[in-house]
């Protein structure tokens, strides 16, 4: 069913009685060419790219709850491609280019809004590090601007320039960065994939893998029975270690809780996305009017999907330090998601050591912005058995080889990435 203002107007005349489900709620078949575990943004995007780019339509996406119930539905909706290291830079820009045409590709308004992402700096050393990163972006054909304090005073007069412990000195701006409506991304991919014949199966939890005599994965066992598969891809951020363990694999990943917060809806106050460089705080304002903000992970392994007060306070302290006009704005909701924190802060998209099983994991807290790119390169890997050129460095064996991609330089300490 094609969505447009005309279809809406027509539907209005019939009291909206004729809308079809946005995606088909499928029951599992015995076998698929490809089974994707995980009905989040990455899994659904992978399925859509398999169907649309690689012609593989006999695909199932298995979701243990409702689609988008994992990190796809509990992030802070930021999209950007402002990375500094080879491997990341090209990949996230690939993703950004896909964001820019997503809505037309999917016939679904995911409210991709390129209002800019601004990383603020507060010291010369930080400025130099941003300059290095910004130049990397420019060399890779990505937009980036280094702004000084005078420029920021004009652009964002409400920042704390004069009364701050760590005054804002400038920032690295990517104008093409911004936000997207996270749930709509999930629904859009579900809608478009479903139209191409992909089976989206909710309330279907994977409980194990079936293997043949050679150890090759031949399918999955689920709460809704066995499902055969030519290939199985896992895109289960937050549960990667648990699912991998069913296949006997240990991953270079820890699960941590990341909290996020939204304020009451207020009239437009903050234009784009900004990140505080002297504390843990980033913020944007949703189209509905809520300030959507977050900070650092709580710092301890957790699958509880909820956090504790110290981080909540730390984030709000950062917010008040940067934007002292938000003191009377009220925090409305807090929630937590499970982050697959990898050992170098960078994702893993690779064939697993087990034939037929493909891994898409370790997104840390950067998975949302990667959604379309991840879908494309994972579909490429599954379809061609070969890494997409923009994901060639996201290999699982990079830790054994010493080829880490460590943007923050924190080493094998996941809670510091």
């Amino acid at each position: 069913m094609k969505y447009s203002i005309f279809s809406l107007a027509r539907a209005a005349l019939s009291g909206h009685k004729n809308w079809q489900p946005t995606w088909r709620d499928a029951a599992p078949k015995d076998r698929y060419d490809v089974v994707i575990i995980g009905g989040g943004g990455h899994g659904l995007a992978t399925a859509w790219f398999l169907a649309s780019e690689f012609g593989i339509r006999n695909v199932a996406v298995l979701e243990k709850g409702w689609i988008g119930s994992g990190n796809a539905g509990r992030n802070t909706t930021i999209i950007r491609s402002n990375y500094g290291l080879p491997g990341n830079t090209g990949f996230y820009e690939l993703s950004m280019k896909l964001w820019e045409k997503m809505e037309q590709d999917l016939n679904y308004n995911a409210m991709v809004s390129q209002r800019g992402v601004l990383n603020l700096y507060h010291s010369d050393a930080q400025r130099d590090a941003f300059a290095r990163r910004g130049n990397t972006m420019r060399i890779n054909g990505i937009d980036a601007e280094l702004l000084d304090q005078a420029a920021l005073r004009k652009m964002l007069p409400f920042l704390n320039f004069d009364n701050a412990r760590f005054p804002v000195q400038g920032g690295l701006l990517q104008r093409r960065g911004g936000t997207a409506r996270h749930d709509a991304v999930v629904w859009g991919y579900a809608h478009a994939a479903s139209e191409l014949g992909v089976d989206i199966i909710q309330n279907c939890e994977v409980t194990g893998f079936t293997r043949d005599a050679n150890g090759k994965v031949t399918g999955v066992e689920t709460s809704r029975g066995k499902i055969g598969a030519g290939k199985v891809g896992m895109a289960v951020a937050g549960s990667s270690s648990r699912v991998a363990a069913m296949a006997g694999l240990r991953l270079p990943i820890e699960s941590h809780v990341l909290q996020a917060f939204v304020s009451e809806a207020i009239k437009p106050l903050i234009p784009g996305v900004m990140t505080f460089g002297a504390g843990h705080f980033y913020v944007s304002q949703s189209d509905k009017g809520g300030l959507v903000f977050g900070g650092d992970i709580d710092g301890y392994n957790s699958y509880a999907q909820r956090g504790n007060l110290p981080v909540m306070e730390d984030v709000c302290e950062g917010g008040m330090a940067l934007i002292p006009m938000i003191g009377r704005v009220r925090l409305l909701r807090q929630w937590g998601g499970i982050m697959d924190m990898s050992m170098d802060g960078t994702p893993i998209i690779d064939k697993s050591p087990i034939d037929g099983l493909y891994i898409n994991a370790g997104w840390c807290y950067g998975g949302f912005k990667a959604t379309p790119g991840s879908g494309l390169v994972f579909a490429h890997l599954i379809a061609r058995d070969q890494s997409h050129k923009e994901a060639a460095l996201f290999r699982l064996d990079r830790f054994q080889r010493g080829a880490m991609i460590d943007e923050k330089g924190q080493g094998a300490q996941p809670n510091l990435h």
Partner: protein
Amino acid sequence: MAGDQTNRLNNGGLIDRSTALNFRFDGKTFSGFKGDTLASALVANGVKLVGRSFKYHRPRGILTAGSEEPNALVELRSGARREANTKATTAELYEGLEAASQNRWPSLNFDVMSVNQLFAPIFVAGFYYKTFMWPAKFWEAIYEPAIRRAAGLGRAAQVPDPDHYEKAWAHCDVVIAGSGPAGLAAALAAGRSGARVILCEEDFVLGGRLLADGGTIDGLPAAEWVARAVAELTAMPDVRIMTRTTLFGVYDGGTYGAIERVNDHLPTPPEHQVRQRLWRIVARRCVVAAGSIERPIVFAGNDTPGVMMASAMRSYINRYAATPSRRIALFTNNEDGWRTAETAIAAGLQVAAVIDARPDVSPAHRSLASKGGFPVLHGAVAGVDGGKGGVRKISVSLTGGARAEVEADGLAVSGGWNPAVGLTSYHRGRPKWRDDIAAFVPDGAPPGMVAAGAANGAFGLGAGLREGFEAGAAAARDAGRSGNIGSMPVADDEAFSITPLWHVAGKGKAFVDQQHDVTASDVELAQREGFQSVEHLKRYTTLGMATDQGKTSNVAGLAIMAAVSGKSIPETGTTIYRPPYVPVAIGAFAGHHRDENFHATRLTPSHHWAAEQGAIFVDTGLWKRAQWYPRAGEKDWLESVTREVKTVRSGVGFCDVSTLGKIDVHGPDAGAFLDRVYINAFSSLAVGKARYGLMLREDGIVYDDGTTSRLAEDHYFLTTTTAKAGLVMQHLEFCRQVLFPELDVQLTSVSDQWAQFSIAGPKTRDLLKEIVDPAEDLSNEGFPFMGAREVKLRGGLKARLFRISFSGEMAFEISVPARYGEAMARNLMIAGKPFGVTPYGTEALGVMRIEKGHVAGPELNGTTTAGDLGLGKMMSTKKDFIGRVMAGREALVAPNRQVVVGIKPTDKARRLRSGAHIIPKDETPGPGNDQGYVTSVCFSPVLDQWIGLGLVERGRERIGEVVRAHDPLRGEDYDVELCNSVFYDPDGGRQRG
């Protein structure tokens, strides 16, 4: 007096009629009384239209009398203190209060945006996902800005919040949320047993629903019983009663978040006082006596001003002596709703009719109806006639199909009660459904927490007291308190019969979530489009995401979803409950930590002296460090820094380096310990000597560096970089306590004990001779390069002297106990005066280290190896140490790694900038030939040009090669030469001389 409080009853209520308060709403002046909320004062003044809704800008009035209010939201106060979305129902009235309605233009009465209602057929749930996609560019340019302007509710202040906030800790055995009958009973039981109790009440008066509904407890009128209970509790030293305080969240280990609105009931906080205080309450047990929330019934026109929750109407009449309406109709599906009819009659108001959805009405109520002269209609409200002026006429569809009309100016609605299951569910608990009360009740709770009374589904007064008392007693017992709890308060239990009714089908918009304008047909549409999970429903329609957090809407929404999808309510389930229980100001979570107080500040021992000298300070972590010391006539920082460097290189200068981390490493195994944490050997270091050391992380990457001296056989003095001081201490303690517990070694931070100064320059010895006792031998033989020992100063003070150099000059570092730090700076100036001494700051320090090719923070960036830094040879092959094995991985020893190299522009007049990338000459920059970047730069007074260090692919093999420094961010691109990273005195003769 302005305003005449037309709707105020002559008697009764918990208001102080002797204290009249003037206030303004939308520019018009009214008056109310002390004890009023803004909502009750508006009710008393006959104001019905209070706000406009989110999407359709429909006129809205006051629905509730508590923190669950979805409609009566205002901008409270003005200017920098303007608070958007403030619930009029909880805002305490004060003299001079100013409030404005929101989300309307130009006025509440005439709101242009109400044309949105005309588009309502299109603006259904999720309509925006289906359109605004073409052309792509139009989204950011046109559609989105329009949507953003239209959305939102109130306006936040656009200047810094002038008020102060703070945070505090409290500890107790039992914390109780709510001071209704269950909460007070719990507090009495726990308090009498000797427990330390904290009783939190979000209202400014204790009593909860007793304030509006009264009753008889222990034979006393409720108000009297409350007063006695409060007096008894107040007399207990370990019971703390906190009004205006909402327990909003429960965290791990029995930690509870609470917000105290200390001074929100005043125009501005008194001097030295905060606006709000965030409490972290640590309690062994928690009794949730947060009551329950009456829920609406969804019917056409249920959002018309004048439609009000039945319990709220009783609150306004009984507690505030304010009458929302003169002629009231009541629509109920349960016994409790009838109390509003009783209240109305008792207050002398007219009851137009009671519309009861249940098949039967009790004989008592029948006789009430006949006495009151109003009809009882069996059926349901199908529509409301009225607009912004409020309810005029109500149409009723009677059981059996007939219609009736009721003329009234107010409609009280009771759809039953929802226990406040938030707190008990915040650890991702799911409440369970109870058919008998048609409501969700807690099913378990976080450890240590229990719900009691209405919050647990025990709606009767007697039951509430009983549950509260028992819960309080049990909680105290669990906390080990065993005092005599006395007798339990007793009251009768009212009958509670309910026939669930969620939604009355009919024409016109029937609102489920009033604030977000989510209608029953939106829920049906969501179901049709496959958004059947309650979480999908919430996200697709935005139901329950408004500032009331779904308190009045969630259960009705899922009940309607259950009905249309043919499931039961428990099968449909609830969404996940998320804190905070009420929205909390961001400023309160930040507390004291804002502006300059965001983080603590560390000051060096010579800070105040440096400030007197006019030093410019720079933030380095938490430290304030002198960056340079400008002198009169110097035109910019560069001139000052260059002068400082030249003075050091030609004479002498000193710099406070106390910010370095300093650690005493004691014990017989201290040397063996350091051998394991550094890549080079320290057990072989002679007493009286210092050595530069490099530490790796276990993954083989460089962690930190510094100089460590051996002061005694079993005592080393280790220094770290300023940035890593705390982390290195933690790392060393990990090595000591976890990895190598067999070693006898003790660690203590002495960072704050010593004021340490670097004294550098060819005249250093001359200066030191003035300060150090003449008996000390400072000659090259008596105190050679890398020597370290204690010396006596003139006057007898003992100091530590280290012959180490970061600048490349003849240099010493001298340490004195920190309280002498300022004196040391003064004395260095006095002693150095004949030699033209200058203090120098971190900039000059940086210049000299770059000239010398010493690596620092920009090169130790967490991705470089010892080899990358040119220090690979330091790695011992004779011992194991942290990081040894992983440092050997193939990619970390690959020949094409980016390594530290010197960089200088070929044009000597060119400025070099950090962050510029290195590209081979004559190649077009691209990802394939991005070979590294400039890490550190300075203007070198010695070379009279800008120089720098960089990390460049195979850099050390390419000395002399000219490459491009490519800096598109700053629009620069120029040739630079790769060179030896030691620009100054490469043989090191000066520092050894």
